[in-house]
């Protein structure tokens, strides 16, 4: 499972981080960092990843099958 982040839609609201801080982190400039970056989400983080994707009110996050 990989997270797809639509940069154009993202406004740094941070609900993804609020829902799943183990996967999503906003830096001080409001830029989004997804752990572990370009690699697959670890199985134990999948539930949190889905919660974060679901939480985005602008639908700027989605899941891609690898």
């Amino acid at each position, binding site marked *: 499972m990989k997270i797809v982040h639509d940069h154009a839609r993202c406004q740094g609201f941070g609900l993804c981080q609020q829902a799943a801080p183990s996967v999503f982190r906003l830096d001080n400039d409001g830029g989004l960092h997804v752990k572990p970056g370009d690699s697959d989400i670890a199985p134990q983080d999948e539930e949190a990843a889905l919660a974060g994707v679901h939480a985005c*009110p602008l*639908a700027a996050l989605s899941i891609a099958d690898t």
Partner: protein
Amino acid sequence: MPAPTSASSIDLFSDDVLRDPYPSYAELRKLGSCVWMEKGGYYAIPTFDAARRVLGDHRTFISGEGVGLNQLGNQSQRGTIIASDGEYHARLRAVVAEQVSPRGLRSMTEEIQAKADGLVASLAGRRFDAVPEFSRRFPAMIVLNLIGLTEDDAPAVLELANDSFNRFGPETSPRTFGSLGDPLAVFKWAGELVASGRLRRGSLGDAVIQAHRDGRIPAEGACALIVAYLVGGLDTTITALQQTARLFAEHPGEFEKLRQTPALAPSAFVEILRYAAPLHCFSRLAAQDAEVDGVKIARGARVLVLFASANRDASKYPDADRFDIARNPIDQLAFGYGVHGCPGQGLARMEVLAILTAMARHVKRVELHAARRWLNNLIHGYETMDVTFN
């Protein structure tokens, strides 16, 4: 076998229903997730999952033909940020995305917190009308500053923004076209503003004018964009503050929870919006034949997404009619969802959190002695609220 279309004769825009729509919403949710509204000639979406799906499918359920319920309003909206689609819509969003994002608003954080604290401290121990003194004053200060204006512009702006949301209503409601004001007045005012050059450098308003100068948007687009952020940024947040005062007066135990644990403020914010959404609905047009949970919708049909009803859907939020500031419903739909999701929600969050924090600090108990509702087609707020901040 496709589900039979449930139908209802409820008039969602009658005085009685506007006064308290929640029992009607519950009735609609019992009928299903897509209900044909006989009196209005549109489909209502009262449940959470279906509402979110319709909002998320912006290619099927488009905004470019207007998001209201009357032809005149919808025609005149077309091309504005709220009523456009695709690449042009994305371009409009991009013009001020930076200024209105939490990152862009960072420089206003201290000012917002200081102003909230100052206002609430000045009201503590007093009895006052919360509509002008509390709910209008604060958002006007903040939004005007953001746009690049000053607080002196507040009376004019509030007057001009006043009836905008009524114009999204149905043809059948006397409220929709009943305003005495000139619907174009706010655009004329914005045009003069753009021409005046008095918008503060670096402000959101200035960014919009720059985008026009750079050829990214036409002149009418620049005016419309400024109007959109003014109108969108005022009555909605104003109403959220009214509902905050009302809910804490009616649920003193919840206010006490906030006083004891101010860290509950972010959760309280989304619960206030879930329980008492300021803006109740917007419509979409089906751009092609579609289906919502088995109910067939023909191309060209109007679909009204009921955010406030979806927020009380018990299949999504257990015990949905209970106001619980610890619930933390972060996916509530008062800001909409998807590509048209409210771009100002970062600012709204900053404003309301600052007020909640200030209330937790300065106010022991909120009392509501009397209130009169303001009946508006989309916004569910008050004309007057006799309040004491003890």
